[in-house]
């Protein structure tokens, strides 16, 4: 019985370990692919609805008015919103890098309004670096480039006045930090490509909160990235932003095709192991029931003798249950050990099988699949390795299933002890 129980637990261990690891992988990729929402205009629908004229000459998601993005960003379905506004501005009395005085430009720089997370990521990745002062934190606070500061003799603590050019109202901003822009110390690639222009020179960018951009009277161009709390919330989020004014010729979607291309084989493998686990549990339960019935029949005489000696039913049943639990504990250690040892090679083999099946279905010759739905996107490679990890949750689940089997076996013992009359057993035997 011990050997069979250990084998059943080993099979359960393999299923649970694969299942839990793949579930974690799927959840991880689901959150990566499934949480970032893209708002794409469906031009055909736009034309059909006769609304495309409203945005004639403008393409892409920027066609949604900036204020709408701000409204969409307030949704409870979102875990994160990355907003960046770019408003062309002027700073009367100050010089701009790449400025040509005779051009007499209305605007000579850019006010970047952003939420902290976006700007943090740019600073985290080393594109920009604070070299003096600190990062902006509140409305009215800005950071400027080192070159812009040197050009105008500005330092941390100074204030600058900005407007949208001409005689538009001026807004005072306090410089709280000075950054170094590592992407274009001398004007950068953009400047090389587009020619010298103070507006496109990143060193003329004055960075602060979204509120700053609003305070100068315009958000300018807004780019937004929305991340759902749960990919399953996509439909609700779509309804909400449509109610807030998103035209119905916009598709709101996540990258499902990319997700399927990368995680599809793992997901299928997970389904296989899930089914396997159900079968093992059902079959294991029946086997354990049968085996414990046979085992208890062999020990019927022992029950008769002990009951004849005056041992109480409860005590006898408790003895059998304890014995079963001890056996299960031993089998759990052995079964789990075996299961943990073989689960990685089994996973590799199953995953390889699923990848090959996916390739055959797709008619592909390699493991590389095009991500559907994202024209021009880089080819996505299917996950070809899943590292099985032992988590406390997996161990707990396996232990729980082993206990379930022990309980099943114990039920047989308890029922037998309660049912058998000692005299009957001893008479039959004698």
């Amino acid at each position, binding site marked *: 019985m011990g050997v069979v129980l250990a084998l059943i637990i080993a099979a359960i261990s393999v299923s649970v370990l694969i299942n839990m690891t793949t579930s974690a992988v799927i959840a991880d990729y689901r959150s990566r692919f499934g949480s970032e929402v893209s708002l794409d205009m469906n031009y055909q629908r736009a034309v059909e609805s006769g609304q495309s004229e409203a945005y004639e000459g403008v393409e892409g998601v920027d066609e949604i008015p900036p204020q709408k993005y701000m409204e969409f960003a307030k949704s409870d379905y979102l875990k994160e919103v990355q907003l960046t506004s770019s408003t062309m501005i002027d700073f009367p009395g100050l010089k701009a890098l790449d400025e040509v005085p005779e051009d007499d430009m209305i605007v000579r720089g850019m006010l970047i309004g952003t939420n902290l997370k976006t700007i943090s990521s740019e600073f985290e990745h080393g594109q920009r670096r604070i070299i003096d002062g600190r990062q902006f934190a509140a409305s009215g606070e800005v950071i400027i480039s080192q070159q812009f500061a040197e050009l105008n003799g500005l330092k941390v603590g100074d204030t600058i006045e900005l407007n949208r050019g001409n005689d538009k109202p001026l807004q005072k901003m306090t410089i709280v930090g000075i950054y170094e822009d590592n992407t274009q110390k001398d004007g950068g690639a953009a400047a090389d490509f587009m020619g010298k222009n103070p507006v496109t020179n990143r060193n003329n960018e004055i960075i602060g909160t979204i509120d700053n951009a609003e305070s100068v009277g315009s958000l300018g161009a807004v780019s937004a990235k929305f991340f759902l709390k749960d990919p399953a919330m996509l439909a609700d989020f779509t309804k909400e932003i449509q109610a807030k004014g998103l035209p119905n010729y916009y598709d709101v979607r996540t990258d499902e095709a990319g997700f399927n291309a990368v995680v599809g084989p793992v997901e299928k493998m997970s389904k296989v192991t899930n089914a396997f686990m159900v079968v093992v549990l059902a079959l294991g339960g029946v086997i354990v029931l049968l085996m414990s019935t046979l085992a208890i029949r062999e020990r019927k005489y*022992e029950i*008769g*003798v*002990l*009951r*004849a*000696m*005056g*041992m*109480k*039913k409860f005590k006898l049943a408790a003895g059998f249950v304890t014995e079963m639990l001890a056996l299960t504990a031993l089998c759990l250690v052995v079964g789990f050990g075996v299961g943990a040892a073989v689960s990685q090679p089994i996973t590799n083999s199953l995953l390889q099988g699923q990848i090959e099946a996916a390739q055959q279905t797709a008619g592909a010759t390699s493991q590389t699949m095009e991500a559907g739905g994202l024209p021009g996107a880089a080819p996505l490679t299917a996950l070809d390795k899943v590292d099985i990890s032992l988590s406390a949750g997996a161990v707990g689940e396996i232990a729980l299933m082993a206990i379930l089997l022990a309980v099943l076996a114990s039920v047989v013992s308890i029922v037998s002890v309660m049912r058998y*009359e*000692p*005299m009957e057993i*001893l*008479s039959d*035997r*004698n």
Partner: protein
Amino acid sequence: MTQVIEEMKETTKNVDELTKDDAALTLDSVTYAYRDGKKRDVLKNVSASFARGKLYSVMGKSGAGKSTLLSLISGLDVPTSGTVSYDGVDLTKMNRDDYRAKSIGVIFQAYNLLTNATVIDNMVLSMKISGVKGKKKELAYELLEKVGIDREKASRKVLKLSGGEQQRVGIARALAHNPDVVIADEPTGNLDAETGQQVMEIFQKLAHEDGKCVILVTHSNQVARATDETQQLTSGRLSTPKKNRSAA
């Protein structure tokens, strides 16, 4: 033996309490019928009483109902009608597990030992079930020695013993918890004449010196003659007790 039993008396409370009454066991109009569809009475309106300090024998042919009587007295089964009382209390009204564990010792014809366990383990387990305290192993060895089982044999598995030796272990185990009533089914059936005689002497001592109520179920006239009283069980009915002259 007496010394061993005296030691055990200290740890088994109920025995001291129960020795005050003479009639340890009483059967009152006991009828037992098999419940297998066809109603077949095995015992018919049997009444009898068994006192402490006496050695009884019940004789009868095979199928007469001897084993049924034994199972009712030992609390392993309950009568269809009538009552079996221990110290005036109906067995069905008391915890029969406790009764079997503490008040009565049963010596089965088929020994009913745990064959895969050692002799000493059988003894100690019985003592544990009965709640005997103290040095159980030492007490067990002493009891086994009294029935002719030495320490070497006591450490063997029961299966390795002869039938006669197993019978003696069965006797020792029945006495392991110093019961008030001892019943035995063909206790000398598997023993040679000499050991049989020794065992009978043990029963006589238990009854006459230790004040136990000892009931033997037997085919043997010789065994019956060594008891104080004999009753015949014929077709489910128990005869009037007959005193035996040869009894001590």
